[in-house]
């Protein structure tokens, strides 16, 4: 066993992880572990922009932004967190600019801004230009800029280290409320050698990103398997609001590759098979720029009612043909190239086939506004932090507004980095490692290795495919009791089959086969949590739409779902923090 000791260990080197690393490594000895080279993280795929009320092009302020965030999240947002998010947004953007991020500019040389879904002037009057952007590669620029700053600060990276277990000094579930549980470190698997490493640390930050791969049609990378969430969950910590998954309206039909909302921000229009601009019916004021949950549902509804396009009538069209090619090239170069490369469609002259794609997990590891992880509704786990898509602060509530996630990773990544470093500096020594710290992982890995050559073993790919298919079929844009129960049954059966999976590669070095098997285990756990939460939430809110309960029910469900694992999956609820915005009906 190889033991490493650090003040702070950060798991993940996407936007949230590296933003945290920049803060933490200035203050304390920091290691950043990542299963991918940092620049491969999925933050780099983000396209449209990052919200901040800079007022560079139009009158705007943080309060309007806060309101939009809360309303966009269908009032499930913790309002104290949303206020922080929107107030610190301006500095978050300016910080990135000072680090060198090449934003698009206005004529006066300031950071340019564009419109995005759900971002409005004066509490919903009209769309406002709030998203700071760099063409349609904003995430790429953020990821590169943060990586560049990490190089400058000589942040210590452990590339292609898969963190697969979290070490706490006590079992968080059996420890009574009020008593202290502390983090001791993490256990990681090194891809290049197959070696297992223990990292002991005073503070640990999880920033492992999303879990889109529980669905088949998704804008998420193959590597977004929700590791951090599942690891925390398996260590006895709850997951919050996992039933809220965002389906982005405009994925390339059949492929799920994202075409940014910026396409509509720049004037793109959705049309059905009759050529109708159908969003006028669903959101008369801001039409195509309504929040994602609404647009996605409207699209799915058009298709369901027979107004879909194509031979199977299973998608709608995103029309950019009325825009100047030069404008498209300047503002949307990448996504138009995706349409050309992957569907052979020329967006200058032809509308692009699109359909909703699983995009973003609103839920995750529950934290407070310092990024400290909660083990129940009130107690923090000492030294454990989470930030980014794997965390649930919750600033996105039931539906995240576009451009608020890149903001989230910067604001709360930074906060978690500072808090973790300060905690480490104030702590004498890291908690004692549990006995045989890596035993659990070693046993897991060995068991999987021993499956090589087992006759009749289940195939990882097959189990994963069936999981993703049942999730797409039963837990997507529209859900109901029957479909969710079907998904639940499927998942239970698949979990059983998972026990019998076999891998092909017994090797130590670069055994990606083994890791895919482990990742599949994570996906199964998370899918179960998503479905359980969705079954219990008998209302429709934001990204979670129950056809058997089509309205929002503030009476019973104005609260966060908390799902605990262990022997028996257990559901609980947590109140929503309300500061000044009382729930209203959500109309655009």
């Amino acid at each position, binding site marked *: 066993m190889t033991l490493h000791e650090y003040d702070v260990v950060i798991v993940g080197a996407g936007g949230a992880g590296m933003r945290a690393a*920049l*803060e933490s490594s*200035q203050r304390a000895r920091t290691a950043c572990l990542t299963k991918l080279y940092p620049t491969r993280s999925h933050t780099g795929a983000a396209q449209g922009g990052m919200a901040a009320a800079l007022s560079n092009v139009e009158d705007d302020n943080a309060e309007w932004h806060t309101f939009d965030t809360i309303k966009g999240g269908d009032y499930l947002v913790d309002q104290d967190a949303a206020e922080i998010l929107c107030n*610190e947004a301006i*500095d978050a953007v*300016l*910080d990135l600019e*000072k*680090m060198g991020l090449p934003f698009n500019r206005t004529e006066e040389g300031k950071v340019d801004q564009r419109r995005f879904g759900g971002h409005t002037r004066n509490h919903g009057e009209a769309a406002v230009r709030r998203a700071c952007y760099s063409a349609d590669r904003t995430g790429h620029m953020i990821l590169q800029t943060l990586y560049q*700053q990490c190089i*400058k*600060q*000589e942040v210590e990276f452990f590339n292609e280290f898969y963190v697969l277990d979290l070490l706490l000094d006590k079992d968080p579930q059996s420890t009574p409320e009020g008593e202290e549980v502390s983090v001791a470190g993490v256990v990681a698997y090194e891809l290049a050698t197959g070696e297992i490493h223990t990292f002991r640390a005073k503070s640990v930050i999880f920033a492992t990103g999303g879990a889109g791969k529980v669905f088949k049609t998704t804008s998420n990378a193959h590597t977004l398997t929700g590791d951090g969430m599942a690891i925390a969950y398996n260590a006895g910590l709850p997951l919050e609001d996992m039933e809220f998954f965002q389906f982005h309206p405009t994925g390339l039909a059949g492929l799920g590759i994202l075409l940014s909302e910026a396409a509509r921000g720049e004037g793109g229009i959705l049309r059905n098979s009759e050529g109708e601009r159908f969003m006028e019916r669903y959101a008369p004021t801001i039409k195509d720029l309504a929040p994602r949950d609404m647009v996605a549902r409207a699209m799915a509804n058009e298709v369901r009612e027979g107004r879909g396009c194509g031979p199977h009538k299973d998608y709608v069209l995103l029309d950019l043909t009325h825009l100047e090619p030069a404008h498209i090239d300047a503002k949307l170069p990448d996504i138009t190239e995706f349409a050309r490369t992957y569907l052979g469609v020329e967006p200058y002259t032809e509308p692009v086939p699109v359909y909703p794609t699983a995009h973003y997990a609103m839920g995750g590891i529950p934290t407070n506004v310092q990024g400290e992880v909660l083990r129940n509704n009130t107690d923090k786990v000492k030294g454990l932090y989470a930030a980014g898509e794997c965390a649930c602060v919750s600033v996105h509530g039931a539906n995240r507004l576009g451009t608020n996630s890149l903001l989230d990773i910067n604001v709360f990544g930074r906060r978690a980095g500072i808090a973790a470093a300060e905690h480490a500096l104030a702590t004498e020594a890291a908690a004692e490692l549990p006995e045989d710290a890596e035993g659990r992982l070693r046993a897991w890995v060995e068991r999987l290795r021993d499956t090589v050559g087992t006759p009749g073993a289940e195939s990882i790919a097959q189990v994963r495919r069936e999981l993703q298919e049942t999730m797409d079929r039963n837990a997507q844009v529209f859900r109901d009791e029957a479909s969710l129960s079907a998904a639940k049954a499927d998942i239970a059966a698949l979990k059983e089959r998972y026990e019998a999976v076999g891998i092909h590669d017994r090797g130590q070095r670069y055994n990606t086969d083994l890791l895919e098997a482990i990742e599949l285990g994570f996906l199964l756990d998370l899918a179960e949590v998503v479905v359980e939460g969705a079954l219990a939430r008998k209302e429709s809110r934001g990204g979670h739409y129950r056809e058997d309960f089509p309205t929002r029910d503030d009476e019973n469900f104005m609260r966060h779902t908390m799902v605990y694992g262990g022997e028996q999956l257990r559901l609980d609820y947590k109140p929503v923090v309300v500061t000044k915005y009382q729930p209203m009906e959500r109309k655009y």
Partner: protein
Amino acid sequence: MTAPELSTPRERIRSGRMRRNAERWSWLFMRFSGALLLVLIFTHLFVNLMTGDGVQQIDFAFVAGKWASPLWKVWDLLMLVLAMIHGGNGMRLLINDYAHRPRVRTFLLWLLGIAVVVVIVLGSLVIFTFDPCPLDASGDLLSGVPDFCKDVR
């Protein structure tokens, strides 16, 4: 909250203007000498191979005839020097690319250097000390000298 102060922890190489660098001169030289050589060599080839009887005309007398004119002397000298340095430098780039072991590389570079120097020296000596009408031991003109030698004598 203000932006984090971004210091440069890395040792910064003292800036200012560039140290003039050999690789850059080499690169520039290849371009300028190449352009010049184009003119020099093509004229040379044209005169030697295309005019008159082509290769067939080349003999001692032909060479002597040309070198009687200082223009051709300078011409050939320039061509020699430029081509050798241009080609020699080109060969140096190749050796750097392909000879990986340091000792082999050093050896080859020396070999190349010596070859280039020897050829340039030899060539210029020939051009400068060239005698179009050499005599044999007995003081007669050697056979094969150009016709004008007889007039000179």
